C-alpha cells in the first residue's frame, strides 16, 4: 500500500520538478528553485496528512485487517464503482449536493452564495491551473504564451482574475459574517480563523502580485490590462518601483499558497475532501460497513 502511495507521490513530485517553467514571470531562478522545493514538500505533506486521515477512518468497525490492508482492499471496489454506470448518476447527485450545495441554498441564499463563491472559485482556479500548466509546459501553446494571445488574455488574465475575484468576494462575505456580525450559530476558534485568513492571504496576495506586475511593467503584464481588472485597479495605487520586488512577492505568494496546500489535511479545510467522500461513501462501501 505504502509502495503504491509513495510511487504516486514521487510521480507527482517529479512532474512538478521536471516541468520547464519557461513562461514563469520570475526573473531570478533562485526564487523559482526555492518555490519548487517548498511546493514539493507541501504536496508530500498534503498527501501524507490525507493518507493519515484516511487510515484513521479505516480503524473503524465493519472491516477486517489492518487499516492499510482495509484501504487497499477497498481501492478495487472504489475503482469498480467509478467505472460503473451508477457512478454517472451519482456524479450528478454529487455535483448538486457537494459542489452546488443545494441544501444550503434552501436554508440561506446568502450563506449559499458565500460558500459557492469560495468553493466554486477554488475549484475553478485548480482546474485553470491544470489547464494553463498543461498548455504552457506540455503543449507550448503560443496563444497562451504571447502577451496579446487570446488564451493569455481570456484564460491566464481574465480567467484567473475572475475566479480569484469570486473567492475574494466570498471570503470577504464570510469574514464580515464571522468577525463582524458574529451570528450565534458560528463558533470562531483558532482553526476557523486560521483557515479563512490563510485563504484570504493567498487570494489577496495573488491580486497584489498581479498589481505589482502591471505597475512594474514586468514581462507578461503589459497588454490589455482590462482583462486583469482587479489587479489593474490595484496597480493604480502602486508606484512603478514595486516591480523591483516582484520576485520576492512572487515567492511569498507561492510559498503561502504551497503552505495552504500542506495545511489542508490538518485543518477544517479537510472537509473539502471528507464531505464529498462521506456523501458518496454510503453507496461505495460494502454492506456491513454501514
Amino acid at each position, binding site marked *: 500500500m505504502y509502495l503504491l502511495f509513495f510511487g504516486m507521490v514521487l510521480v507527482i513530485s517529479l512532474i512538478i520538478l521536471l516541468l520547464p517553467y519557461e513562461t514563469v514571470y520570475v526573473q531570478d531562478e533562485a526564487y523559482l528553485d526555492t518555490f519548487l522545493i517548498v511546493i514539493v514538500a507541501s504536496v508530500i505533506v498534503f498527501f501524507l496528512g490525507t493518507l493519515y486521515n484516511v487510515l484513521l477512518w479505516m*480503524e*473503524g468497525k*465493519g472491516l477486517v485487517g489492518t487499516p492499510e490492508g482495509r484501504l487497499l482492499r477497498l481501492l478495487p471496489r472504489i475503482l469498480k464503482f467509478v467505472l460503473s454506470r451508477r457512478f454517472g448518476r451519482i456524479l450528478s447527485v454529487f455535483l448538486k449536493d457537494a459542489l452546488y450545495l443545494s441544501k444550503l441554498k434552501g436554508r440561506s441564499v446568502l450563506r449559499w452564495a458565500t460558500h459557492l463563491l469560495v468553493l466554486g472559485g477554488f475549484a475553478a482556479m485548480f482546474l485553470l491551473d491544470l489547464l494553463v500548466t498543461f498548455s504552457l509546459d506540455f503543449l507550448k501553446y503560443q496563444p497562451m504564451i504571447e502577451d496579446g494571445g487570446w488564451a493569455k488574455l481570456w484564460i491566464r488574465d481574465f480567467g484567473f482574475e475572475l475566479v480569484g475575484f469570486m473567492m475574494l468576494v466570498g471570503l470577504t462575505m464570510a469574514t464580515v459574517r464571522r468577525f463582524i456580525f458574529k451570528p450565534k450559530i458560528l463558533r470562531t476558534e483558532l482553526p476557523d480563523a486560521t483557515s479563512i485568513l490563510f485563504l484570504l492571504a493567498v487570494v489577496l496576495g495573488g491580486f497584489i502580485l498581479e498589481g505589482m506586475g502591471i505597475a512594474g511593467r514586468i514581462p507578461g503584464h503589459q497588454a490589455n490590462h482590462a482583462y486583469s481588472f482587479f489587479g489593474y485597479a490595484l496597480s493604480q495605487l502602486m508606484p512603478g518601483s514595486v516591480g523591483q520586488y516582484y520576485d520576492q512577492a512572487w515567492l511569498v505568494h507561492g510559498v503561502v499558497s504551497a503552505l495552504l496546500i500542506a495545511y489542508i489535511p*490538518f485543518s477544517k479545510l479537510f472537509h473539502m475532501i471528507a*464531505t464529498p467522500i462521506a456523501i458518496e*461513501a*454510503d453507496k461505495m462501501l460494502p454492506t456491513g460497513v454501514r
Partner: protein
Amino acid sequence: MIAKKLDISKLDVLALMRYDACTRCGECTSTCPTGGEAQDIELVTPRGKILRLREFYKAQYGLKARLLGPKQISEDQLKELSSRAYECTICGQCKTVCPAHLDTIEMWENMREFLVANGLAPLPAHESIIKSIENYGNPWMQPRTQRSRWSKKIEKEVKIKDAAKEKCEVLFFVGCTAAYDPNIRNMALDTARVLGKANIDFGTLGNDEGCCGSTLLRTGLLEPARELALKNIEMFEKASPSVIVTSCAGCYKTIRQDYPKVGKVNARVVHITQFVNELIDSGRLKLEKRVDGIVTFHDPCHLGRHNLLYDEPRKILQSIPGIKVVEMERNRAEARCCGAGGGVKTAFPDLAQKISLLRVEDAEKAGAEILTTSCPFCYQSLKTSIDAKGSKLKMMDLMELVRQSCSP
C-alpha cells in the same frame, strides 16, 4: 497518564469520515431541540458532540498523538461527553438541516454504541429499563403474561387471532408501550378495532411478542438488541404473515430498518398509517361518520425524518369527514421533536417536558383543538405536557379518530 484509552474500533468507518466532514457551520445548533432550543449548551448540539469526540480520539490516535504520544483525557471529561450525548433525542432534525448531508441519526446511534463499548454508557437512569427488558421482555417491568391483556376488552367485538398458532394475513405488532401502559392501551384497542372494521384477517403474537429492541438500540446496546431481534424474527417466520403492521413508530423503524441487519424479515413491514391509508384507497375501510374538530398532526421523528412518512397520516386525516386539518409552523421534515425519544424522557424528564411544552405551544399557535400523532411515545409525552400546561388541546391518537369515523 491517560485516564482512558478510547477504543475507536467501535466507531463506524462512515462515522469517522463524517466527523471529518463536519464543516463546523453550526446550522444544526439552532434547531437542535435539546442542545439549541431547550438549553443552549454547545456540547449537547450535534456540532458540539462531533467536535468534542473528534478532539478526544484525535488526541489519542491523530498524527500528533502518534508522533508525540497520546494526550490525557480525564474520566470526568469523558463522562461529561457521555452524559451530553444522551441528552439527544436522536430526532434527526440535524440530519435535515446539515448542508454537508451527514447522516447524523446513524452517527448518534453509533456514538452511543461506542460509549457503551468504552464503558462510558449507558447512563444509570437507563439501567432499570435495560434490566426490565432483559427480565420481562418489556421496558415497563410488567410480567410477560400480561402483554396481551389489553385485547380482552374487545375479544367479543373484534376477532384477533393468535398468530403463533393460527395463520393470518396480517400480523399486528402491538409494541410494549401500547400493550402495557394503561394510558396508551387505547392505541392498541383502536388499531385492532380499525383492522376489524376493514375485515382484515389479523392476529398478534400475544404474550410471545417480545420488545422490538428499539430502546436498547437507541441507547447503544447492540448485542442484547440483536438477541431480541433474532427472537422476534423467528416468531415472524413461524407466523409467516404477508404483512407486519406496527402502530408504534419506534417499533416500525426498528423492524423495518434495523432487523434486516440481523436477519431476513420476509413479510412487508408497514406502519398503521400506511396500512390504513391503503385500506381507505382500496375502499376496504370507509370513513363515513363526521368527527368535528380542528386537528393538527405531530410528525413522530421515527416516522417522519427517520422513514420519510409524511403524507399518509395527513391523507387519512383529510379522509375523515368533518375534520379541518391545520399545520403547525414546523411540520414534516422540520417538525419539532416531542422530546421523549433517545432515552431522554427516562434520563432527563425535565428536559423532555421542556421540549414537549414547546411542541404543545406550536399546536396551540396553529389554532388546533386536537393534537394527534401516530406514536405511543409522542402521545405520552405530549399528553403529559398538555395536562401540565392546562392547555385546552385534546390529545388523540390518529387511530382513535379513524375508529370514531368508521364506527356505526
